[in-house]
């Protein structure tokens, strides 16, 4: 095999692989520092469940930043949506399968408000959403005024943040979660099948493709990572519903941003709004859509968080927006607009959650934890800027 080719492929794609490498380094470091506790099935499973509500916010925030805006209101919007969901179930006794879609829809509708202020009134997003930040914070306090923390007694709802997908009722392989294994294996097969199919189509068009060896190496490498994650998760309770939701969201968003006309239009608006407008793209419409999806994901984040705590608290959502922004930037989004991937935001959220989890295991004081996370955020953005210019 030609090592030079491999080097070239890695160099050309350093920005894409950089975050995965960073995550790998962080996990390895914590694995060593905690004598392997960090990569135990239980810890990894917890870590994924903890990052869920920030990851979905980070994915939405990535698109907001891609179109050169910001949304500071999403943290308390998430908290407010979680509180409304709790009230709908506890006081109004709505069934859970009604509550969830209604809350998601309401989130999207509320997202249209900053969309309107930014697109139509031309108010800077920072100010418009700072107003939302204050309003939703007040709104949480208003709706929880009489009761304080609202306990959620609905098992189906609470399973979203705490439950795991059911296992197959067979006695084979007693210590592992069989359905998780099967899902993982199917995912790997699907991935390999898809890659080969894509490569065949490209060859049919006579396009340049990776050489056989490097292509095989890539397949093996990615399959190993997927397999490894599956194995680790199946060693504890299996795949949680949070992970399922997170993967679904990132999968759908990845598809929309990379393959659809809407996705291309979002990135064009971010790269150059004037040129996009003159190319027949309705920039206002795109702005509305991006803020609405952010509102919807904020609602989802609120549901995940409330479900995880099995209650809606008066402080839910505090600092979520800043964690989401950090996840997006660690994930490689550019503040100049037009550049940034939703998969990056997922990795970014995992990086930040891993730091918290690892340092907690090492019993590092919270004060130093903040400092370390700040340094990592700065380092990630420095890396990003440095590799972009070269």
């Amino acid at each position, binding site marked *: 095999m030609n090592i030079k080719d491999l080097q070239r492929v890695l160099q050309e794609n350093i920005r894409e692989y950089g975050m995965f490498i960073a995550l790998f380094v962080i996990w390895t470091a914590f694995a060593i520092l905690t004598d392997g506790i960090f990569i135990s099935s239980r810890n990894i499973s917890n870590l994924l469940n903890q990052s869920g509500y920030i990851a979905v916010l980070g994915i939405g925030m990535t698109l907001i930043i891609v179109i050169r805006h910001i949304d500071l209101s999403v943290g308390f919007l998430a908290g407010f949506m979680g509180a409304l969901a709790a009230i709908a179930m506890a006081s109004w006794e709505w069934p859970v399968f009604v509550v969830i879609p209604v809350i998601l829809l309401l989130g999207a509708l509320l997202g249209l408000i900053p969309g309107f202020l930014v697109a139509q009134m031309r108010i800077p997003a920072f100010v418009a959403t700072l107003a939302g930040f204050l309003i939703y914070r007040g709104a949480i306090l208003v709706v929880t005024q009489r009761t304080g923390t609202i306990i959620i007694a609905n098992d189906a709802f609470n399973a979203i943040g705490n439950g795991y997908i059911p296992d197959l009722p067979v006695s084979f392989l007693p210590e592992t979660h069989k359905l998780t294994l099967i899902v993982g294996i199917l995912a790997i097969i699907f991935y390999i099948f898809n890659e080969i199919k894509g490569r065949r*189509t*490209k060859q049919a*068009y006579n*396009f340049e493709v990776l050489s056989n060896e490097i292509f095989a190496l890539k397949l093996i490498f990615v399959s190993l990572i997927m397999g490894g994650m599956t194995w680790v998760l199946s060693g504890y309770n299996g795949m949680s519903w949070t992970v399922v939701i997170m993967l679904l969201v990132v999968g759908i968003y990845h598809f929309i941003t990379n*393959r*659809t*006309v*809407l996705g*291309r*239009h979002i*990135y*064009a608006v*971010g*790269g*150059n709004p*004037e*040129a*996009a*407008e*003159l*190319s*027949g*793209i*309705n920039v206002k419409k795109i702005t509305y859509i991006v803020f609405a999806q952010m509102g919807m994901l904020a609602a989802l984040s609120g549901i995940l968080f409330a479900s995880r705590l099995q209650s809606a608290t008066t402080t839910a959502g505090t600092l979520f927006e800043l964690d989401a922004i950090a996840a997006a930037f660690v994930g490689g989004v*550019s503040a*100049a*607009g*037009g*550049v940034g991937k939703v998969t990056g935001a997922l990795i970014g959220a995992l990086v930040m959650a891993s730091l918290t989890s690892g340092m907690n295991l090492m019993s590092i004081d919270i004060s130093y934890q903040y400092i370390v996370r700040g340094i990592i955020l700065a380092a990630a953005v420095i890396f990003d800027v440095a590799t972009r210019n070269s």
Partner: protein
Amino acid sequence: MNNTPILEMKNITKEFPGVKALDNVSFAVKRGEIHCLVGENGAGKSTLMKILSGVYPHGQYDGDIIFNGETQQFRNIRDSENVGISIIYQELALIPDMSVYENIFLGHEISNGPLINWNETIKQSTAMLKKVNLDVNPAVQVKTLGVGKQQLVEIAKALSKDVQLLILDEPTSALNEDDVDNLLDLLRALRQQGVTCIMITHKLKEVMSVADTVTVIRDGQTICTIDAHTEELSEQIIIKNMVGRAIDNIYPKRDHQRSTEVVLEVDNWTVFDRTRGRNILKNVSFNLKKGEIIGFAGLMGSGRTELALSIFGNPENYTLVDGQIRLNGEPKKFNHPHDAIRAGIAYVSEDRKKNGLILTQDVRQNISLANLNELAHQTVIDENQEVNVANKYKDSLNIKTPNIDQTVGHLSGGNQQKVSLAKWLFVKPDILILDEPTRGIDVGAKFEIYTIMNQLVEQGLSIIMISSELPEVLGMSDRIYIVSAGEITGELPIEEATQERIMHLATRN
């Protein structure tokens, strides 16, 4: 005149990863002369000037810079300014919201300790403005001035730093004829006062008018230096040296169309500009026939771009007061560029970086942007088909790029313009509006664009070309409309059009 050169650059070599931008270039400028530096885009002119002004510091290039008899090793722009070298870039570097006097002394404020002496600043600014013959109140905001006046403010700023060598990078590319004349007069006046000047330009007419010496650079090498006072100099000679071949006529021949089929008719088009608070277009009427190129000539700011944008349905800042568009005889109204594109109209912007291209995206994504729906099945883009489309245009328009995955921000001006053109050809328009189609691109690329235009009209497209370069208007159009201060002041068939007649009509209002 002192005969020792004020500046000598010896054996300058500068390499970028993979490219040798300058290869052993030597260049000398005599004291008190106007020295024009010409060459195609990408020839290395700007790189050479960036080395001279310290943008690329000593150590990043090979060779010597000798200024006023001393070898210089500039670490940054400030070093070069300290010895009296000032560079004015194509894109003006003024702060639009600051006043004229704040801008003139920005970076070298007149101060007593940490406090700025505003009275002295204003007094000296007034003196500087007088030197450049600019009669404005130094307290007005720069953004209220036209481009021509802003350029003069830039020069005043350079003069305030006791400049000995003034470098102007394409100073006239955004100016109208009057402002160009003003600027050239000013350069002559500065020459009288002993300021040496290097001017980079694409406009050979200006070279012929002011240059004492001309140096031609091609492919990173000095081709020749011609003394205008002792040697023979003509536009033909310069062009021949620039492109390495003689171009007899840079406007390729085409039979002028005499179709009678009118594809576009605009009547009484009157448009109100909300930002300026007045009508910028008044009762504009014109028509376009099938397979025809009509030229819109006029001064900068006469309203030609606004005419194109308001027809194209760009709602930003404009309100249509009156008027009608008929497309193939049918009345139409476009509320958004989207509608105009669907109706078969394409608009290639004059400012490809600001309004034309998504610089962060690659060639492929830029070409497909305005017509993604054609490549999509149920809104999912067929990327393989997209690659084919992009490659097709890359080949047919001869876009010079390693591959279609190249970010367009990294391409040269001429190739960016071709990408912009490719994007609009892919929407398969019937009517193509080209706004300054060859601004800031070199002679070779211009010729290619003109050739493409001719091919397009032969295929039955109709083209509206807005251009401030009269030779281009005369060389390419079948018919010419002249716009002056928002009104059409004349229509000339190509046979009756001359530069003098056009200028006469363009300055009527």
